[in-house]
């Protein structure tokens, strides 16, 4: 198969460089964001699936475990 057919496009190599730069910028931003979060908030957010607000009388009991 033919390869390198894009080599003639002016400055095509720049795409690769830009790609890596963008990637690292996003990666650093995401890490910074994650580290800035407070533990108490993280805990409350992670509890969300376990607190769905439904009225307990309607909640079934599992045969094996009490999942809820």
């Amino acid at each position, binding site marked *: *198969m*033919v*390869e*390198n*057919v*894009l*080599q*003639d*496009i002016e400055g*095509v*190599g720049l*795409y*690769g460089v*830009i*790609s890596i730069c*963008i*990637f690292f910028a*996003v*990666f650093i931003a*995401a*890490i910074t*964001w*994650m*580290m*800035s*979060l*407070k533990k108490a*908030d*993280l*805990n*409350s*957010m*992670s*509890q*969300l*699936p*376990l607190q*769905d*607000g*439904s*009225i307990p009388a*309607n*909640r*079934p*009991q*599992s*045969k*094996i*475990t*009490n*999942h*809820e």
Partner: protein
Amino acid sequence: MNTNVETFKYDNRIVRAFAIATIVWGIVGMSVGLLAAVQLFFPDANLNFQFITFGRIRPLHTNAVIFAFVGNGMFTGIYYSLQRLCKARMFSDALSWLNFWGWQAIIVSAAITLPLGFTTSKEYAELEWPIDIAIAIIWVIFTVNLIGTILKRREKHMYVAIWFYIATALTVAVLHIVNSMEIPWSWMKSYSMYAGVQDALVQWWYGHNAVAFFLTTPYLGLMYYFLPKAADRPIFSYRLSIIHFWALIFIYIWAGPHHLLYTALPDWAQSLGMVFSLMLIAPSWGGMLNGLLTLRGAWDKVRQDPVLKFMVVAVTAYGMATLEGPTLAIKNVNALSHYTDWTIAHVHTGGLGWNGFLTFGMLYWLFPRLYQTKLWSTKMANYHFWIGLLGMMFYIIPIYVAGVTEGLMWKQFNKDGFLQYPNFLETIVQVVPMFRLRAIGGSLYILGYVLMIVNLYKTAKAGQFQKDVEAQAVPFNKKSEESGSHLWHRWLEARPLTFTALSVVAILVGGLVEIIPMYLVKENVPTISSVKPYTPLELLGRDIYIREGCLACHSQMIRPFRSETERYGEYSKAGEFVYDHPFLWGSERKGPDLAREGGKYPDAWHYNHLDDPRSTSPGSIMPRYSWLLTQKLDTTSLPARIKALRKVGVPYPAGFENGPAQKDLQAQADKVVANLKTGSINADSDREIVAVIAYLQRLGTDIKSAPATQTQTTNAK
């Protein structure tokens, strides 16, 4: 205490509807898969009935499993969890039901049209243009309902599962629209707007990300919701889940080029695809470990609870598949694995393990809650687990063996420097026993599935369905949340639309880096002057080739390896495909590559081979195509086809379709008939087989008549 408590109801009816749909379509999709698997060692299992022949039901199987089984499974989980995570009923019941019935109508139309041979030929995007439009409309309805529910939520935080749902909704829409650009030439048929290399790049940008954003991200959302529910403990690390989300959606899109290694893609893009594929291991394994570590201190539950057993295997399969995927994206590994059954084994680790087992776990957890009762039989669910797991092993392991065997045999040279196995058939006959074992594995998996259907049916019968679940929550005030040291997170959570826009940016950045070269490539494919558009007869033959799904087993892409050029002839050039709407490179070889098939055998050989492959190639697993001998060739639509192709850039002369095309067609058909006569075969010139033979004899012949300098656009590896 806030006295402003609101009481509202969660809609369980829509959840039940999607759950039943996933159960029903699952058994259909898997059974069709089994029928296809059986045909690989017993070709007559199609009963010589064209509508259930491998090439047509293979896309039916993949579409049914991906869009019907997993699609409905995804909607089941999203409609259940989204309401509870948002503490709100769905935005609109009407949209929910439009989503449900529209999606089922699409599935039914796929189940009818694919066996009839209405296919675009693009993998996982085979459905034709009217259904494509319907998919786009229904998907928009789902997205509006999703975003609408998030906007009216009573919970201030958007749990990470919702992020995955948003990314799914948006990315699938972008992928589907870009890849489905086509020009209709009849009410059910069209030609791709892209040609050759460009079409291949768009298709695999879609194909890769369809796996990412239809089979992976929504199910990760479900994992982040249902695994904590089933284990009754929060996710191991919420921080990790944030990184998992952004890293995954950002990196995934970039990795698309790994489907096109050793093709026309420039080297740097191939390397980029490979490097980003390897980087994907990090977020994927972060997610897997986050799931498994959620069970720390609760492994005793896993021993007893089938729900958790299914989920643990699902998450483990996710980890295995996401380690293997990047491995297959390494160029040297890909050189061996591509076109072999290795890829099939890989996708079934993901399909049977990750999607299948997570769906089963979710359904076993959900049904007792929907029906306010206990699971009818825990023992039966455990049987399902073990039978399903055994089935999965029996499926995957033989197919890995088959894949590696194929790859090695195709590349094996003897001490004199010739191919050790020059006849492709030898390599397939070698792995037929593995195909048999695979069918046993698939049967076991389906057997387990039947046990689940019985169990869930009995559970439903024993309980009472609760269609609306009453719930209470305090509405939150967006403005009061915009303070604190973690302002950015709060700010973003309070603005789902901004969040959505940022997610789009994240997927588009990677997408654009791939898409821009994709659009530039068209002008940069070196033209080969001897490459001409297909003649009318060849065009009709090509459309029959597409209808029959020949590309499910035959590639048309010779890679620049000596093992391939020795076997098939000169490696494929980008310029050879400039009139291919759509491209037909294929992704799998159950039969030999056909890129240079033209002129290899006489017309009479093709006639006999298509009528009964085993008459010319003893031991062949190709199905008979005897209906091509009797079915009349449809020439009435020829003008419409030529006009449509002209619109997308194929240079047929003006007015060609009004007379000259028909004359050309008849002359070429008569020539084929005359050739057949020399082989003692009397055929009518207006039969489909004549067109198919004309097409096969054209394949790869254009460059043979060209001066060598024109075709040597780049060097072979």
